Every structure is written in C-alpha cells, then in structure tokens.
C-alpha cells in the first residue's frame, strides 16, 4: 500500500529574474509503514517539496504540473480547507529549527491543546493526552512541562516536544525536515532512535529529510537522491548506498558516511556550481559537473531501472 505517491511534480517560483523551476518531474513513493529519506545538497528543493505536499508553498510558488496522491486523493487539486483538514491529523510535520518551531509566548500545554482543536475531548482530557505524549518522548515531569514555555527547555527537548506534537495526532505520514541538523551528535542519535520507536508504535510512514548520509543509512528503508530539483536516483537504502547507479550519488558516497564525523553538517563538496534553475539545461541536469559525461548526456534523460525498484536518471544505469 502506498501512502504518498508523487508523480511528475513540477514547481516554479515567480522571481524578478524570471520563473525559477525549483522541482522538475519529481516522482517517488512513500509506502505504508516505511521510512523514506530524501538527501541532497542545500538548495536542491527539499523544503520546496515538503511545502508543495503540505500546500504551504510561498505566495510566489506554484505547482505547474504533476500529482501528489495522498491516500488516494490528489492534493494538487485540493482546496485550502481540504488541505487544512489533512495537516495535523493525517500529515504531521517536524521542522528543522527546534528553537523557532514553537510559539514563544504560549505555554507548551496551550500549544498542544490548541492543535487538538478538532477533538471532541474536554480540556482536561486533551491535557492528559498531551502529557502522555510528552511522557513518550521522555520529557521529565510531563504534567509540569505543560505549563512551561518553550524557552525554558533545551534545544533537544524542544525538538522532542515538536515530535510529540506531530505524533499526537497519529498521522498516516510524518514529514521531518532535517529534524536533527540543529542538534549535536549524541542528541541526534537519541532523537533518531526515538523517532524510529514512535514510528513503530504508531505505524505511520515517514518522509525524512537530511543532509547527513549516515543518518539516512541508519534510519531509512528507502532513499531518494535529489539534485537541482530533480530526483536523480531512488531505491532501497541498500540498493542506492551499495550500488549507486548515478554518478552524483557515487560522488556523494565517496566520502564514506561512516567516516564522516557526527559534526559534519554538509555533504562532501563536488567541483562546479549548481545549474541556474531559471535556465535549466536541456539535457542531464548533472552533466556540467559529471566526470563521466558523454555525448548522449546533452539529451533529456529518463529514469532507468537497473534493478527492480532501483531507478536512476542516467544513461549509465542502462548498461549492466
């Protein structure tokens, strides 16, 4: 069963220098109960993808084509009220910045009660539910924590509170946009273990975005590699990490994730610049920086499937 299926998704931002084509022909699936990682350099469109799924694109952003099918419903055709009804109960999100993700002037309990505004439960029952969730993410003294304000918690605790809020609704899909990037290495490990535990209990699917290959390898079942707004390779973690078929993925993996220290927040640097998203090259998006490019790379590339479920948008993936 597929919870989320993205098909040929295109997103553009209207900018002063013309239309910026931030996502092109993005396609992948998030099957039920699986954790799908999305990895890619800064600016490759990870946040844009999330915002498109949530229906929260910036005012100048527009979905120009494709489908986002969530539980059988095409979200690109849903109106604002339908999207609002999904956000929270069916699709929950944990954002990158734990410092800024909670409202500074409302107590944690108030915020957790507010997000249950659709519930028919009374105030006391909602607060009990909030405390139970805080307990699950191992916040000490959950009842007392409800009356405290975000600045009274450490960064790691705030991120756990954000996770508790997201999972409180028992969503079908949890989206996590670099939830651990702002945390230090030990907290990162603890947070990831927590996420996996809770995912297992609730049985939701997770779309997990990260810069950190080690984290993706550790946590995810499937991985989607993005480059300059395109999906260049996707498959199971094992397929993609053991036998990368796209030169971009291979370059990323050359610095072995296991050897990367926990503090590395950035992917290894590949010579050359990202293509200009306002004038995308007609052929392979990675060709300009690829050391294995050939003449055929000047033509648009389709996804090849070198192994069942393993797909790469590269001509080299054809030959076995």
């Amino acid at each position, binding site marked *: 069963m597929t919870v989320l299926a993205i098909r040929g998704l295109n997103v553009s931002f209207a900018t002063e220098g013309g239309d910026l084509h931030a996502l092109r022909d993005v396609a992948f699936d998030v099957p039920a109960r699986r954790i799908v990682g999305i990895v890619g350099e800064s600016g490759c469109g990870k946040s844009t993808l999330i915002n498109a799924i949530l229906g929260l694109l910036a005012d100048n952003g527009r979905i120009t084509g494709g489908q986002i099918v969530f539980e059988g419903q095409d979200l690109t055709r849903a109106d604002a009220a339908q*999207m609002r009804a999904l956000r929270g109960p069916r699709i929950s999100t944990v954002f990158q910045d734990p410092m800024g993700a909670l409202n500074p002037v409302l107590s944690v309990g108030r915020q957790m009660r507010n997000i249950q*505004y659709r519930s028919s439960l009374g105030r006391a029952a909602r607060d009990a539910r909030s405390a139970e969730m805080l307990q699950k993410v191992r916040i000490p003294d959950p009842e007392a924590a409800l009356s405290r304000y975000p600045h009274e918690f450490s960064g790691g605790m705030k991120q756990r509170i954000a996770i508790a809020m997201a999972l409180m609704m028992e969503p079908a899909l949890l989206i996590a946009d670099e939830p651990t990037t702002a945390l230090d290495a030990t907290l990162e490990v603890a947070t990831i273990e927590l996420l996996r535990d809770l995912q297992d209990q609730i049985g939701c699917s997770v779309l997990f975005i990260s810069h950190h290959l080690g984290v993706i390898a550790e946590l995810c079942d499937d991985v989607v590699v993005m480059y300059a707004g395109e999906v260049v390779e996707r498959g199971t973690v094992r397929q993609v990490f053991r036998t990368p078929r796209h030169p971009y993925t291979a370059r990323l993996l050359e610095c072995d994730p296991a050897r990367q220290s926990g503090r590395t927040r950035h992917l290894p640097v590949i010579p050359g610049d990202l293509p200009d998203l306002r004038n995308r090259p007609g052929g392979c998006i990675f060709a300009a920086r690829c050391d294995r490019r050939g003449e055929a790379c000047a033509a648009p590339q389709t996804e090849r499937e070198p192994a069942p479920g393993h797909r790469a948008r590269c001509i080299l993936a054809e030959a076995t």
Partner: protein
Amino acid sequence: MLGYTLKRLGLAVVIVSLAMAILFVMIYLIPGDPAAVALGPRATEAMRESLRVKMGLDQPVWVQFWNFFTRAWTGDLGNEVLSDRPVAQVVMEQLPHTLALIAGGMVWSVALGIPLGCWAAVKRGSWADRVVGIVSVAVIAVPSFVVAIYALLIFAVTLRWLPAIGAGDAGDLGDRLTHLILPSLAVGLGWVGYIARMVRASMLEVLEAQHIRTARAFGLPETMITYRYALTIAILPTVTLLGVGIGQMLSSAVFAEIVFARPGVGKLVYDAILTRNYPLVTGAVLVTTVLFVLINLLADLLIGALDPRVRSRF
C-alpha cells in the same frame, strides 16, 4: 515576576529622583528673583526679604535642594502664589480630567490602530493595505490641535452631535463621556496611525516566523493563527511604544484642554504660565513626570505579563 516588578519599581524611583534634580536645577537657573516675581513690582524690599526667608531662598543651594527633594517625595510641592493653596492639592483636583482624556485617547488609538494594522498585515499588498497606509501617514501628519479645532467645528458647532466645551456634569457619567469623545479623539487620532503602522510591521515580521509555519502545518484555523499566535507577539513593541508615547499624548492633552475649555493639568499649566504662578508650574510638571514614569512602569509590567521570555530574564 516579583523580582522583575521590584527591579522596574526601583528604576522608576531613580528616574523620578533624577527628574526632580533636573527640575530643581532648571528653576534655580531661571534668571530673576522668584520672590520679586511672585510679589510683583509694587512690593517693598522688606516684603520680598520675608518671602525669600519663607520660601527658603536664603539657605545654601544644597539645603534648598535637599528641602525641595524631601518635601516633593512626601507630596509637599509648596503653595501656589494666587490662592496660597497647596500645589499638590490644586494639581490633584485637575489630574483626573487629564487622566480621563489620555485614557480616552488610548482607547481610540488602540481600538482603531490594532485592528487596522492587523488587517493591513493580513491583506498585505491589497488596496485595503494601501488605504490603511495612506490614512496612517495622514493622521500622523495632522497636528492634534488641528484635529481638535476641526472636530469641534464639525461635530459640535455644525452638526451639533456632541457638546463643544467643558467636561460635563460631575455626577453624570454619560454626560462626562460624551464630553470626552471629541477631545480624546484629538489626543488619540495621530496614535491610530502610529499603532496601525507599528502593528502592521511587526505582524508581517511575526507571520514569517518558523513557529507560524508550524502552526499552519498543524492546520490551525487562520483566525487562531492571526490573533492567538501572531498578534500576541506583534503587540509587544506597540505596548512599549505606547508607554513612551504617553509623553506626546500629554502634550496633545494641553491643546485639547485649551480648545475644548476642559479642566485638566494642561489647562492648569497654561494658565499658571500666563499668570507667572511658578510653584504651580513646577508642581504640575513634576506630577506629569511621575505620571509618565508610572505609565511606563505599567507598560513594562504589561510586557512582562505578556512575554514569558522577558519575565524569566529577571
């Protein structure tokens, strides 16, 4: 919150003391003999000498300062020249009228300014936003005495909807309030513009914040996001601005009291200056200063009550 309150209170005491010192120096530096001014040209030298002794002007300057300072703190601001009544009593009689006027001005500015600013921010870039922007600048640009005169001419003289002068009957609350409408509008109208602009700017900033994105990602209703999540933060700079703005409202109150012939501290100071009733001027200025400091203290405490981050810093 108690520590925070005590700190703010201590600061207020220091500021009032400093204001007293400055006021003393200013009076001291005014050229001329206060006794001669008070008694007028036909007084004899002996009369002046006895008044000087009575006013303590024969003492060394630091003794004069100490006497002024300690008496002022106990509420003794001396006696006024014309009727020889205690200055503190005369000022306190007038103070409620001025307080009502300023409170009225606040009500106008807050009740109109906050919703307008909020509306403009939510409808950013629309014609509504542009109209609010133009109106804000316009009402800021018009001096309050001009508002006072036109309000008087239009609503009191031509349309006869509202009373033109005075403060109304002492026992009749409704009458008092109808007499307050136009003068307080004159005091508050400019502030409608300031507050609308301030609220709009800080709303736009807050609406971009990450936690608003979080709130949207949980599908909270937009009205809840605007009023509970954004406005509660966006209001904070406005509270500080209003605390400081009281000084400007106090000076607008002088004009409003004169134009509408209302009793009040502003009218009192105006008359006292015309009759060279210096002790009364000094006393009224000191009371106004204390009022200003107190209202700022209130604004600080309100910020502390509204913003848990501020509270915990003390």
